[in-house]
């Protein structure tokens, strides 16, 4: 007996599929975003101030000590910071992800807090804490020991001081990579090792550490690159310490008379080193990705710390005092005390700084407006681009998806200040005269934010099985429609987290902004830099605290939008 199944004709629509034109459009935009500034950068580095071809810029770069000294300094700072970050973040990540550490959520939240803190603000706060004579910690030290006025415990105006401050605000990158990797590693592998007779240390050495090694290596690399390309902290601390790093040197080349050709040449070593390191990482890890996600695994086995639980927790808290508690206490102190590094008492408390920032500082409202506009626009546009590209690469939707993925990741190799120089050279001349508008900053911020946004969303896409989309496609929806109606709702949390991440990134960004701003397009970070120039530390503290409140408010507000559910804000 046969049952005749009525032939169902799927309701096919013969509408035009806009997928391809849209995607190629994105590719073209990305090309312009990245290729244009880099081309100008290369061209400028090979010309003299009159425009003739020359190698003189590079000759100066490698023969004059005023150029190669900063290069060496930068290398030392970046290497040491990367080591420090790994040494602190890897054990902490392990404790949080793999042990029964109490309040591990609190630790994660505090790491996020240090990530959200702009590095330049952290540097200023540490200036208040650990300047050799006026620093609060040194004052306490002298108060306790009765030491002479010149004796100090800490001196932030040293290369060690800069390494310390950079590490404070870079270690979250390593922490997140390591902790996430450990979160994802199933406990079964370790159980198998134990069952087969492996002791705890043997298991750690042969199973856990190798599994987490790629994440640690990636973390070390990110930390190195961050430390190398950071402008904020060195800009605050290097000048008083009496040396330049590569980024502050590049910035100083824009002093009058500007020497963009030298700045371009000085940018290239940073670019080349970044590309080289990313390639090296790729070669070392090769295909040795550990495909550990798949099927259903039990939750990772938590190692009981027994009596060490609270010790470990207290150590974590002590470490997190350095990037979070102490700096914010110092900023709070400076905001309300009459002189920035005088200890606040009920008697001497003053609202003078608050009043100054709110009512007298005429540049503040414009800078705040610009920052909020740019933060919102960058986060929205950046998330949109990242979603599309992540989708295309995750689903291999068009030929050439690899190129698109590469283009979206490429900006990671361009340090912010280098991008700033490149964009400045690109958009101060026809046909694109964007300098002096918010557009040029928007382009810079989107470009800077793209790689991490793309990677976050790609990870989010991987968790959504294509069969859902396929079903929609089989039923006749175009790709864009199924993306909009099926995938997008599933991606909500990932998208919101990315949006917040980019918004926070804009608040933190100084290195490209410092090259690209004009008085009409000043942002808060640049305003803080300007205030630091003339030593107005009280005003900086007020703005810094305000900036943090705005960040938290925006992140909370976005998370509360009805229907979006609650996103755990994770970097």
């Amino acid at each position, binding site marked *: 007996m046969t049952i005749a199944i009525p032939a169902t004709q799927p309701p096919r629509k013969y509408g035009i599929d806009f997928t391809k034109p849209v995607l190629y459009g994105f590719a073209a935009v990305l090309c312009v975003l990245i290729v244009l500034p880099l081309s100008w950068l290369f061209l400028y580095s090979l010309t003299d101030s009159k425009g003739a071809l020359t190698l003189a810029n590079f000759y100066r770069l490698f023969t004059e000590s005023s150029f190669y000294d900063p290069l060496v300094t930068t290398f030392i700072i970046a290497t040491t910071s990367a080591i420090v970050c790994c040494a602190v973040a890897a054990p902490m990540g392990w404790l949080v992800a793999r042990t029964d550490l109490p309040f591990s959520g609190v630790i994660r939240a505090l790491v996020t807090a240090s990530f959200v803190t702009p590095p330049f603000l952290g540097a200023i706060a540490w200036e208040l804490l650990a300047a050799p004579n006026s620093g609060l910690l040194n004052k306490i030290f002298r108060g306790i020991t009765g030491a002479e006025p010149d004796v100090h415990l800490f001196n932030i105006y040293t290369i060690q001081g800069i390494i310390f401050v950079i590490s404070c605000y870079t270690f979250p990158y390593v922490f997140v990579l390591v902790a996430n990797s450990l979160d994802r590693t199933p406990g079964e592998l370790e159980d198998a090792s134990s069952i087969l007779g492996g002791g705890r240390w043997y298991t750690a050495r042969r199973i856990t550490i190798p599994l987490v090694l790629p994440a640690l290596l990636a973390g070390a690399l990110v930390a190195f690159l961050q430390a190398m390309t950071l402008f904020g902290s060195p800009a605050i601390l290097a000048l008083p310490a009496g040396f330049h790093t590569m980024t502050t040197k590049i910035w100083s080349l824009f002093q*009058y008379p500007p020497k963009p050709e030298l700045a371009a040449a000085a940018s290239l070593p940073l670019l080349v080193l970044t590309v080289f390191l990313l390639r090296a990482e790729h070669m070392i890890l090769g295909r040795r990705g550990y495909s550990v996600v798949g099927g259903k695994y039990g939750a990772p086995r938590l190692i009981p710390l027994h009596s060490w639980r609270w010790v470990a927790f207290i150590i974590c808290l002590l470490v997190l005092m350095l990037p979070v508690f102490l700096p914010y206490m110092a900023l709070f102190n400076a905001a309300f005390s009459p002189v*920035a590094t005088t200890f606040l008492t009920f008697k001497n408390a003053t609202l003078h700084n608050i009043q100054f920032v709110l009512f007298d500082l005429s540049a503040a409202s414009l800078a705040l407006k610009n920052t909020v506009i740019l933060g919102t626009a960058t986060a929205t546009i950046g998330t949109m681009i990242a979603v599309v590209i992540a989708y295309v690469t995750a689903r291999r939707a068009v030929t050439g998806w690899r190129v698109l993925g590469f283009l979206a990741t490429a900006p990671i190799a361009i340090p912010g200040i280098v991008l700033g120089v490149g964009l400045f050279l690109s958009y101060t001349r026809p046909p694109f005269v964007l*300098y002096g508008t918010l557009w040029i900053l928007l382009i810079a911020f989107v470009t800077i934010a793209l790689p991490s946004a793309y990677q976050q969303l790609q990870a989010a896409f991987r968790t959504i099985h294509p069969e859902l989309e396929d079903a929609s496609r089989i039923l006749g929806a175009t790709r864009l429609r199924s993306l909009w109606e099926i995938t997008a709702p599933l991606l909500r949390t990932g998208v919101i987290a990315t949006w917040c991440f980019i918004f926070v990134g804009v608040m933190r960004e100084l290195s490209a902004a410092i090259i690209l701003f*004009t008085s009409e397009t*000043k942002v808060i970070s640049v305003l803080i830099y300007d*205030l630091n120039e003339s030593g107005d530390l009280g005003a900086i503290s007020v703005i810094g605290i305000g900036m943090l409140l705005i960040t938290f408010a925006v992140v909370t507000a976005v998370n509360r939008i009805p229907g979006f559910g609650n996103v755990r804000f994770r970097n």
Partner: protein
Amino acid sequence: MTKPKISRRDVLIGSSALAVGATFATRVLSASPPATEITPALIEAAKKEGKVIWYTSVDLPLAEKVAKAFEAKFPGVAVRVERSGAERVFQRIGQENASNIHAVDVVNSSDAAHSIVWKKANLLEAFVPEDVAKFYPVEHKDPDGMFASFRVWVSIIAYNTDLVKKEDAPKSFADLLDPKWKNKIVKAHPGYSGTIMTATFQMARDLGWGYFEKLAAQNVMQVQSSADPPKRLALGERAVMADGNEYNIFEISEKGGPVAPVYATEGSPLIVGPTAMFKTAPNPNAAKLFTAYSFTQECQQLIINVGGLRSVHPQTKDKPGRTPFKDIKVMKDDPAGVEATSDEIKQKYSKIFKV
């Protein structure tokens, strides 16, 4: 220092440089324009524009006080202060001008050489406020009416009175080379500050670059703006400042801060800060009103009283308790000299101090 080469500053970015020769030829003949009073019509026109953008290197709290005083007197015209070090203001204006961005209405720089460059590049508007025409000494106003001295002060040595006893304080620049000041000196940077650019020029001329080489060996703490060393002294971060604004020292000490000025026996570098308005000012009437106001006896007395600055307006009075300006031995100012050598100064300086 007097070599007649054309410095890079003359070739102020872009096309405007081409116009220099031609403009100069006609300017020499033209007299300064007639003085402008603050008339109700000007106030009305300024109110229509509603705002004025003031680029300046005056220490920010003082700049905002001047802005607030102006806003109180002329309600409806808001002042936005764009404050950074004079050399950065100069760079910013050059960079914006080269990109055809015209954001600045009125500028007040602490490097008098800047006005010379802007004038040569034909960027300034000839505008003579009534007070300037009537009261200002000839040497403090441009013959073509392009700028006049808004403020005058000196870059001085100062010390923290909690850390240094009066009798131990340095008396001269030479004293700062004493080994006892090693690690205890703070100083600002000519790459950012116009005051320090001017001061470095005068000190290098009178004391020689060798002085700076010896000073660098004292391991000085380097900051940017000339407003910063007084603030570092007040924090107690360093005991002595080798250069910085006299007016910040007054401002801090008169509020009870632990700082005191020293007028070096060699003479203190004399700093003159001219104000000018730009031809391309987006708010030309508000710019005129603000410029005119800034030279009035009222505003000049304000910058003396609350700011600690000096004024060349003859109707102003020194504030009691401060050393009268005429009693201070000053080095001779020479904006043209600074203009010709500023690039060289920056390079030599960063070679010596490594930053």
